[in-house]
């Protein structure tokens, strides 16, 4: 019988080890997903016992802050309201969280500071803990200017500092107020125009002719053309039996690269696309593709710049003029034009500048990081000169401002959803760039007439004070 006792005890020993294993699974491996489960009431308990951290712009202006309301509850205040809701997000027990309020929830509630002595003491004596503050690269004035400039259009604007990659403004319209979720929730979710969508980082559009700046740079860098080569444009080109036309079938005649960019000649860029081939194109597109949301904190949709490993000549031509299957976000296009502004150096864009603990100590600080060298400085400068002409004498004339040199490129992106999307990407001042911008107006028509004036208004209002 004693043998049997030992076997029985061994069985229980095994069973208890199994218990510890299963316990470790819930408390270590599954713990993060259990904590994040929306049905877990603990997050809101924590919310009740914590002063949620604030969100501030680059000048320390308030973007989101918690105040005491009359009934001693926390009230979340968003001074910019609908102008910045797609970035800042909302924080509602009923409707959940979005934007930075969601992605930096842990920091705002100070969860990672839980272990700090002060918060431990606070929680033991029942005082409210304090979360951490976010300091963004955003410029609240520029955000307001750009929001106004887009008017009642559906569309988006992305503005970055090309020297550093700091994101200065992100606009998405239509928008909504974070303070009136309750009364509008159903409408917001069923509206065909998707007001909840953050178009600046999640709106996917064909880049249209704005992509030609990249093609021009790539062609010069690879040496498959030069400034002097003349291209013949009869208004169309036939590739493998299929016809590709210039806008309004306009014949541009004998033109060089700079002139082709000024008039946005599809024939010339189709030829360059075929010359570059899929590998030549992808060398540059893949550098852009590397940009990710690791320093954004808000969701970034994947562009499919590299879609298709092999492309027919027709596909190459379409890609070179930003049509076909290529889709991208306003955020990407602002980064691309920023790289050209910044002597060909692509900076890694970032939105979070600092995270500070409740007593002002800096916990995280983001500094500018170079993502990649897109073009050599010489080639970048060539493209800048061409883009200046686009604004001076080409399709971007409506962005012109007296006494300010602006480099730009328009785009008119055909799409299956009706009228073309109007694009303008550019930067100013062109030889000392401070703002790189991408504007898109959904179904707005041509970029030169609709998007360029919006960019002009922003440059005018933003740079006059500087």
């Amino acid at each position, binding site marked *: *019988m*004693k*043998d*049997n*006792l*030992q076997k*029985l*005890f061994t069985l*229980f*020993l095994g*069973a*208890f080890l*199994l*218990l*510890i294993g*299963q*316990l*470790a699974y*819930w*408390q*270590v491996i*599954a*713990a*993060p*997903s*259990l*904590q994040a*489960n929306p*049905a*877990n*009431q*603990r997050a809101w*308990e924590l919310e009740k016992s914590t002063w949620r951290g604030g969100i501030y712009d680059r000048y320390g202006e308030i973007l989101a802050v918690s105040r005491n309301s009359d009934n001693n509850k926390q009230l979340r205040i968003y001074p910019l309201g609908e102008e910045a809701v797609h970035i800042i997000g909302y924080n509602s027990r009923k409707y959940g969280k979005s934007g930075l309020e969601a992605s930096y929830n842990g920091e705002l509630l100070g969860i990672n500071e839980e272990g700090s002595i002060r918060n*431990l003491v606070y*929680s*033991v*004596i*029942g005082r409210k803990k304090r979360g951490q503050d976010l300091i963004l690269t955003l410029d609240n004035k520029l955000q307001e200017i750009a929001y106004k400039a887009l008017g009642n259009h559906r569309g988006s604007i992305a503005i970055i500092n090309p020297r550093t990659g700091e994101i200065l403004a992100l606009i998405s319209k239509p928008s909504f107020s974070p303070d009136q979720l309750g009364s509008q929730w159903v409408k917001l979710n069923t509206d065909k125009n998707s007001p909840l969508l953050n178009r600046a980082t999640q709106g996917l559009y064909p880049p249209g002719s704005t992509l030609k700046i990249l093609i021009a740079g790539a062609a010069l860098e690879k040496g498959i053309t030069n400034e002097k080569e003349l291209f013949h444009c009869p208004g169309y080109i036939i590739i493998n039996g299929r016809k590709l036309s210039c806008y309004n079938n306009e014949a541009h005649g004998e033109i060089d690269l700079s002139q082709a960019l000024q008039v946005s000649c599809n024939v010339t860029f189709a030829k360059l696309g075929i010359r570059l081939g899929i590998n030549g194109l992808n060398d540059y597109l893949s550098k852009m593709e590397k940009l990710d949301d690791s320093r954004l904190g808000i969701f970034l949709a994947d562009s499919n710049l590299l879609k298709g490993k092999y492309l027919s000549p027709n596909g190459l031509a379409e890609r070179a003029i930003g049509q076909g299957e290529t889709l991208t976000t306003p955020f990407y296009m602002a980064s691309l034009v920023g790289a050209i502004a910044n002597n060909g150096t692509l900076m890694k864009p970032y939105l979070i500048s600092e995270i500070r603990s409740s007593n002002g100590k800096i916990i995280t600080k983001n500094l500018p990081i170079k993502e990649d060298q897109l073009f050599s400085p010489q080639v970048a400068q060539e493209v800048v000169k061409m883009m200046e002409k686009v604004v001076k004498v080409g399709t971007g004339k409506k962005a012109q401002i007296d006494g300010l040199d602006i480099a730009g490129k328009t785009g008119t992106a055909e799409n299956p959803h009706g009228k073309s999307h109007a694009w303008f990407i550019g930067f100013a001042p062109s030889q000392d760039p401070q703002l790189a911008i991408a504007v898109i107006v959904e179904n707005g028509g041509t970029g030169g007439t609709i998007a360029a004036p919006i960019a002009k208004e922003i440059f005018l209002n933003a740079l006059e004070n500087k």
Partner: protein
Amino acid sequence: MLIKTQRKQEQELLFRIVFLLLFSFALVYLSIGVEAGIAIFLYPLGLSLSFYLVHWVWEITKYKGDQLLFSLAACLISIGLVMVYRLKPELLDDQLLWIVLGLMVLLLATIFFRNYHKLEEYKYFSAFLGLLLLVVTVIGGVQIGGAKAWIDLGFVRFEPAEIVKILVVVFLAGFLREKRELLSLPTWKIGNYLLPHPRHFGPLLLMWGLSLILLVFQKDLGMALLIFGIFLAMLYVATSRFSYILVGIILFLFNAWLAYLLFSHVRVRVDTWINPWLYLHGKGYQITQALFSLGAGGIFGTGLGLGHPEFIPAVHTDFIFAAIGEELGLIGASFVLLLYLLLIYRSFRIALQAQDEFGLLLAAGLSTVLAWQTFVIISGVIKLIPLTGITLPFISYGGSSLMANFIILALLLNISDKNGRAREVNER
């Protein structure tokens, strides 16, 4: 407080338990109970004093019961009292009262009833009493939390099944000691197989019937599973015949399958075990809240009084282990598991050293009660097996369960006392 003693180990361990009690009461006091006033510290002091009293009486009466066993139980009881204070401060008086009553029973049993052998004469009476208690519960019991397992005596409510599990062990120990050779010898031939004669099976089928009553009429899945487990374990220890266990497990699985088909309360337990997330706000609420609790605790726990185990229904009884997981973390919960493992180890050791077969079987059965009950409830709470509502020995709130645990402790200690005396005689 350290005095020269024969029970040195016990004294040293109890000394540490006093600190554990005072320190953890202070933590809970600071986080949830300040308004109750400093008088709350009378509870840990009172409990410590009770432990020491037991220790001193044993010292005086030269008791040889295992020192570690009592210290481990005292540690678990202390953790239980702290958790009840943390989770339901209004039940603290009740819990302390039951613990003190239990300690008194323990003292009386270890002073006046050291000769556990008398129990063997009452083996059939035990079986009869067990059945009677269950039948009375089925007829006149009240239903609390799903199971119709309680008898209301007006001034107190108690759960007969807690006593029945001990009666079952007493019966089986006596019965198996007498019949174990007959049961081990196959004399009955069926085809090419030799099996023990069916005549010896009768009383064992009785056990099977007992667990069926629990399952069907009382809806008390936990107790049914517990008693069936005890039955199989003791049968195996006594006869070494694995075929019994196999047949037993097949019978059990058949029962479980039938129960699943027939009873909605069994289906609920199985469904919420397979995927509780489908029933987050309904029948899966309790178990998912328990899992959230464990997840919130992580490795180090939130700290006593700083978590939110109050979201779990019945957290102070069946789900108390989830609260430990949340506030003491994986580390704390694993330590509690290790305490149980040590307790079980010591009680199996008592069985191993038993001087006679009845003592061995009795200790084996009681050890199995502690081990199996702890395993069944904890694995239910952490979703290793379907949930069956039973209490966590020594820690959960509840008078019947505490009292039963003290009786088990007393019996084990008495067997160990006899072992100790026998050893002394040998050494001389």
